[in-house]
């Protein structure tokens, strides 16, 4: 008897509790309606220009699509082709990006911290000038600075670098920096490092200001003897939030770099693919060959890589595990 009745009871009670929860949920939503109203403009743009494009890219990655005809689903063929047949991707874009990202990413990050830390050691009155000196190149923006790089790395004797090296007697003939495959990637790395002191750098400077000064005093009593120990045991742990923010910014700017090679050489595809980065590869397939499906598959790979790089940064600096 009992066993027959109780399931019925529980069923009605669960449905009514679901309804109750649902009603309460709606009441909450109605009560907080102004919150959603305030959020709406941002959320709409956010969905339309960030969430949906990412979803679309993920979907397009499984199709063959040229932008005019109809979509054709081809499953994982794009990804299989990318990793088995695309020789340019495997032998040029991937190694180039790997080398570029490895130096510009962690390298630029460490340099940014080092310079921010050094600036922080200076008397407060003059700090702003140094901040400006380091920040200005990244602020000028890639477009404005290509004037500088083109003049500096110009291939004839009038180029500043060539002139300097010739003058010092280190080279015998001017080097065509931006067209010769063996130099292009190096020039790109140097230029990118130069302009890598951007938002993340400012965040680090701000982070250094948040470190409680009493901690240094306490640390000294506890036996910290030199500045290096101070940095590792006090400064770095105290500014983890800013370090993480900065790391995320560095990952983004590094992986999305690609226009730099075009700005330096003036060509969408660099000579012998010497400066070919993954972003250039995407642009090549998307806007020159119009294989949008395949290009989307590559951008999905790039997004995945940046996601895992970010997970790694969270592992390093995050206080709580999320995402």
């Amino acid at each position, binding site marked *: 008897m009992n066993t027959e009745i109780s399931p019925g009871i529980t069923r009605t009670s669960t449905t009514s509790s679901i309804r109750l929860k649902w009603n309460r949920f709606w009441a909450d*939503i109605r009560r*907080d309606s102004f*919150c959603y109203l*305030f*959020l709406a*403009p*941002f*959320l709409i*743009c*956010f969905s339309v*220009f*960030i969430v*949906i494009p*990412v979803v*679309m*890219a993920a979907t397009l990655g499984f199709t063959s699509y040229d932008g005019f005809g109809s979509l054709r689903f081809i499953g994982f063929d794009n990804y299989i082709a990318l990793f088995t047949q695309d020789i340019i991707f495997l032998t040029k874009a991937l190694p180039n990006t790997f080398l570029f990202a490895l130096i510009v990413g962690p390298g630029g990050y460490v340099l940014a911290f080092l310079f921010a830390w*050094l600036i922080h050691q200076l008397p407060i009155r003059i700090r702003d000038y*140094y*901040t400006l*000196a380091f*920040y200005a*190149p990244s*602020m*000028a*923006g*890639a*477009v*404005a600075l*290509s*004037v500088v790089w*083109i*003049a500096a790395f110009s291939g004839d004797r*009038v180029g*500043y670098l060539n*002139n300097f090296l010739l003058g010092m007697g280190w080279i015998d003939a001017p080097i065509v920096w931006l067209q010769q495959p063996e130099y292009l990637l190096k020039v790109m790395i140097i230029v990118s490092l130069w302009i890598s*002191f951007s938002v993340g750098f*400012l965040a680090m400077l701000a982070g250094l*200001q*948040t470190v409680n000064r009493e901690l240094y005093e306490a640390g000294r009593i506890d036996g910290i003897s030199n500045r290096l120990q101070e940095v590792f045991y006090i400064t770095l742990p105290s500014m983890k939030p*800013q370090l993480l*923010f900065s790391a*995320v*910014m560095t990952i*983004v700017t590094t992986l*999305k770099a*690609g*226009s730099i090679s075009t*700005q330096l*050489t*003036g060509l969408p595809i660099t000579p012998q693919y010497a400066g070919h980065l993954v*972003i250039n590869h*995407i642009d090549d397939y998307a806007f020159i060959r119009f294989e*949008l499906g395949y290009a*989307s598959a590559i*951008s999905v790979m790039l997004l995945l890589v*940046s996601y895992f*790089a*970010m997970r790694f940064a969270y592992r390093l600096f995050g*206080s709580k595990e999320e*995402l």
Partner: protein
Amino acid sequence: MMIRRLRRITPFQVILVTVFTALAAFMSLPIVFILNHAFKPTNELFLFPPRFFVQNPTGSNFEQLFLHATNATVPFSRYVFNSVVVVALTLISVIIVSTMAAYVLAKYQFHFKQLILSLITLSLMFAPETVGIPRYLIISGIHLNNTYLGHILPSLASPIAVFMLVGFISQIPGELLEAARIDGASHFGIFTKIVLPLAVPAIATISIFTFQGVWGDVETSTLFMQDETMRTLAFYVNSLLSGLQNSVAGQNIAAAAGLLMFIPNLIIFLLFQRKVLETMIHSGIK
């Protein structure tokens, strides 16, 4: 004792300042160069051996830039006008939209809040460059090609701005908002009368970054604008610069254009520099 120790100049500081000054000077070479290059007369631009600093500064490069562009199909002033309109409208809209979103995210509890916050944190790593194709499809799908909205709307989705503002606004004391509510202020009243004025440093900061992003952006002009009259100054300057690598013609115009792109950024940054650091203190990822 602390103060005395700070006042005393140690040998470490002397070495640091000298080495570091040299380094800072080296790092700012491109900026010094761009300032000098733009004012060089044509004969100095191609002087051998090349000179870094300008000898006889002249404004003729700028003159030529204006003339060159005026003779083209689209006058120079049109690009400037487009840029100014786009930058101004984008700045205002980003400030309003992001502050509104950040205010409720920082100060209220509601359903999906955590989801939205983690989506924003996740999308900090988002680079528009990676999804240029779907964005292009969306913009043409909703017929925003060749409109100012096509420039503006994509920048409104600015996770970084919201993220920084949330960090900053959450340290505005809740009692202040509570007091205003007891005094009968509406949600909108609290937002305009208390939150907006108090969030000014953070707003200044996001203005700088938004300004830099939009002012130098060529993506919207390249992808979403097919009509030359709707493209911005950054696009025009960029097109002046491409193909410059191996040519002599146009070097002087490019130099002037480069400086023109840089100066507004510099002015905005100098105006708000202090505010930036004040804001960034609150914008770490915890």
